[in-house]
């Protein structure tokens, strides 16, 4: 059912709050007063509830079913974590109130930091990055600062990035002023070592490498330690994109692989809800080589057991590369992640990683005869297929949209770029075997139709709240906000 925009339902006079009447005191704005009211529509409380409830029903969510978006790690979001984050002692404290009044909050950050450092075997962690991509930025800013400290800041500007990398990797490198040099993938879906070595032959300008491991093909980089050695020998640093850390927690510690910096997506590995687009949180761990440059603020514990925030670039933080954000990071996400980590414990986190990998391999095994696995052998936490098996005219997107009609969120489409018509399926550890079987049955049947060239797939979805949306039209003449004229125009069409 169609739900109008709130601006089409409400009026600027309508309100869903009851505020006391202002007293009419003389303004102290000195005339710096708004001239034109916003005119924004309001709704009474019952109307607002219904508007957003009805809209919510147009969304698919992990609470409703499998959400196999490869590389996004959509796992169960425990409600205990929501409850804990809402304790007034966490949710209702101000980032700048005196530190003596937030000792529990600082302790919580320190505890989470300890877990992250231990699980990765890295000596240092920056807690303030606000999402995964922000964590990448944090890592590269530390590398930049280290190079500056070595006096090579202006020289070492080349960042190596495999072609299978997330788009954020090259984008982040560019944001930090690096140029991106792309490394080829080999036929096994890993870094092509010959190409890497070639790119390192002239090494004076190499800043480092950004490598995802397990990589975006869902594979562990077999030559990872050699890569680390090569990059270090070349005078660069090894940034590891930790988006796929979920697959190896408790079995592999990035610190043992020669990594210098790695961000951790708390929502992917530690179950904080993605919220339809954030907030995320991207704590970034560092090796000894980069530890001196971590950003402020950070928490430290003094000998008397008092937790203290280091907020300025001086004293013990005199080599810090600076401050990335206004306050201390995503406290709300820290609480959720710690609640999850404590619930799972060291044993549970390892079991979760293993179950995630088992589930992915089960899907690969169940579907490899009807679809085209991109690479041979076992996968890690996600199974990657190409569109080789489809008949002419049927594309990956058709298979994805057909899954919607079967009651599932589609897999990741057309990524990684190294595989034609890629379909990247990540079930995570929080799916039961029965759910996996139902999903595989549905996808198997669609795959057979795709192989036979069933044209009805092109029209999917048929059963979703909407049919396929015209993305080209949206981009051609962008309509990015509501106007009264817009409504009448739509009505006229």
């Amino acid at each position: 059912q169609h739900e109008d925009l709130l601006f089409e339902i409400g009026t600027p006079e309508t309100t869903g709050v009851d505020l006391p009447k202002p007293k009419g005191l003389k303004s102290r704005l000195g005339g710096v007063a708004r001239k034109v009211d916003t005119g924004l529509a309001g709704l009474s409380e019952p109307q607002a509830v219904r508007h957003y409830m009805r809209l919510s029903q147009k969304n698919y969510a992990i609470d409703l079913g499998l959400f196999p978006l490869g590389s996004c790690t959509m796992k169960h979001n425990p409600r205990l974590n929501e409850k804990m984050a809402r304790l007034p002692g966490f949710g209702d404290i101000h980032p700048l109130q005196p530190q003596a009044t937030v000792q529990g909050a600082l302790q919580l950050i320190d505890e989470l930091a300890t877990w992250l450092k231990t699980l990765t075997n890295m000596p240092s962690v920056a807690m303030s990055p606000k999402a995964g991509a922000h964590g990448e930025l944090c890592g590269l800013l530390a590398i930049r600062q280290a190079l500056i400290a070595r006096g090579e800041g202006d020289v070492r500007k080349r960042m190596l990035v495999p072609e299978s990398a997330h788009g954020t990797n090259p984008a982040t490198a560019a944001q930090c002023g690096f140029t991106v040099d792309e490394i080829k993938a080999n036929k096994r879906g890993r870094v092509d070592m010959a190409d890497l070595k070639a790119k390192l032959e002239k090494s004076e300008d190499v800043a480092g490498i950004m490598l995802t491991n397990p990589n975006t093909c869902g594979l562990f980089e077999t030559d990872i330690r050699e890569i680390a050695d090569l990059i270090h020998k070349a005078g660069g640093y090894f940034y590891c994109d930790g988006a796929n850390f979920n697959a190896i927690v408790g079995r592999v510690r990035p610190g043992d692989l020669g990594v210098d910096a790695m961000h951790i997506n708390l929502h992917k590995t530690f179950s904080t809800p993605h919220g339809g687009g954030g907030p995320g949180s991207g704590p970034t761990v560092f090796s000894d080589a980069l530890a001196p440059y971590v950003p402020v603020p950070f928490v430290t514990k003094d000998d008397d057991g008092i937790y203290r925030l280091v907020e300025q670039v001086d004293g013990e933080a005199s080599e810090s590369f600076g401050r990335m954000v206004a306050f201390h990071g995503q406290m709300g996400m820290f609480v959720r992640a710690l609640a999850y980590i404590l619930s799972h414990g060291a044993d549970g986190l390892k079991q979760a990683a293993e179950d995630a990998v088992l589930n992915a391999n089960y899907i690969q095994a169940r579907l490899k005869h009807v679809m085209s696995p991109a690479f041979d052998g076992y996968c890690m936490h996600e199974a990657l297929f190409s569109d080789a098996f489809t008949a002419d005219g049927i594309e990956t997107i058709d298979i994805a949209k057909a899954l919607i009609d079967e009651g599932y969120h589609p897999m990741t489409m057309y990524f990684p770029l190294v595989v034609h018509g890629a379909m990247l399926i990540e079930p995570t550890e929080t799916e039961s075997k029965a759910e996996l079987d139902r999903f595989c049955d549905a996808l198997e049947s669609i795959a057979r139709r795709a192989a036979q060239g069933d044209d009805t797939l092109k029209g999917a979805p048929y059963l979703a709240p909407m049919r396929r949306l015209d993305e080209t039209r949206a981009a051609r003449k962008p309509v990015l906000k509501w106007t009264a004229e817009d409504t009448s125009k739509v009505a006229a069409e």
Partner: protein
Amino acid sequence: MRYLPLTPEDRANMLATIGAKSVDDFYTDVPDAARLKGKIAGLPDHQGELAVERHLTKLAAKNRSASSGPFFVGAGAYKHHVPATVDMIIQRSEFLTTYTPYQPEIAQGTLQTLFEFQTQVASLTAMDVANASMYDGSTSCAEAAVMAARVTRRKKIILSGGLHPHYAAATRLLAEAQGLTVVQLPVAIDGEGELAKAVDGETACVIGQSPNVFGTVTDLSAVADAAHGKGALLVSVFTEAVSLGLVTPPGEMGADIAAGEGQSIGNGLNFGGPYVGLFSCREKLVRQMPGRLCGETVDADGKRGFVLTLSTREQHIRRDKATSNICTNSGLCALAFTSHMTLLGGKGLKQLAELNHEAAIELADALGAVKGVEILTPRFFNEFAIRTPMDAEAVLAMLDEAGVVGGVRASRLFPGDHLGDVILVAATECTTADDIAAYTDALKEII
């Protein structure tokens, strides 16, 4: 392990289907030296909900919540009332536990609310277009600076002396990483106007803030004119979104980009995060914007619907040519913002702003009447700076003993700038007459 549905039998059956002996088979690519044998040392095993809840509740109890007594801390984050309905909406499974709306056919809930959010932010800031949110106000500000450099192809960024120093730091960091030059004007309680003098033909943008970090509200129209006269942009920053109901918004002052913090509407204090960065600009700059954009379109049946659009600006398409690396932003906080703003309505927001302003007026009058206290902020919305005859840290500590969280010492934000006797003080609709009396009485005792 309550979050793991697989039973031991499931695992055995699945391994058999796969043809693997154990999960160890899947990890054979891991170099032997990097394989962890046994458990990671020093970490405890799994615990039940009751145990976890007890531990975290104990930690939470060590913090003093803003609602537990008179509370006057602002400087970039504000204690406002969040309606229960807002929290209910953002806890709705379909909003909370979904991903970025990459599949619009089953994500219209998220997409339509983002479209509503963009409309609200554009209207509040009086700008043409807004994006679907940034991490927070400080990163909005930093992205605005580098966007201005892209737009103008110039390299100098000028920061007001009233810009929140954390915003200035985040901006300097990103700008300098991109090879830009950042000019920081001297700290000034009423210094936004200085920007007009500083702008020159090399300037990409000037960044002013109103209300600024000292609470001073300033009409930046003259700054805008000066900037535009030199081919530079004006970036107008705010940290208190509620002020937009009453104070001249960026668009009315001629700003090219507005960047601010949306926490005040719909979002709790959360010790600094997650918050929601607001970002809007003039229409012609839209293709240089960072972040996601939601746009209107139609489906195959011709029905109105919404999609993420202009993604050729973004990293997953453009990679190293993207306008930013931002990807996951602050979707759920934007939903909180939008649903609170919907409950308020235009008239409600204005009224809320008036209540905030009046609380600050009453607080200023009460504190100003205490012998020895000087109100430093000439024009303010809901916060201002005071000077007392003593060291601010000592004053705040004594207020704390009296149960009053009296504000932020300016020296915490400006360590080297000789503001040791200055306190930044904020009031909101949550501030009661009793709170003000408690502050005033305690202050009288102290100085």
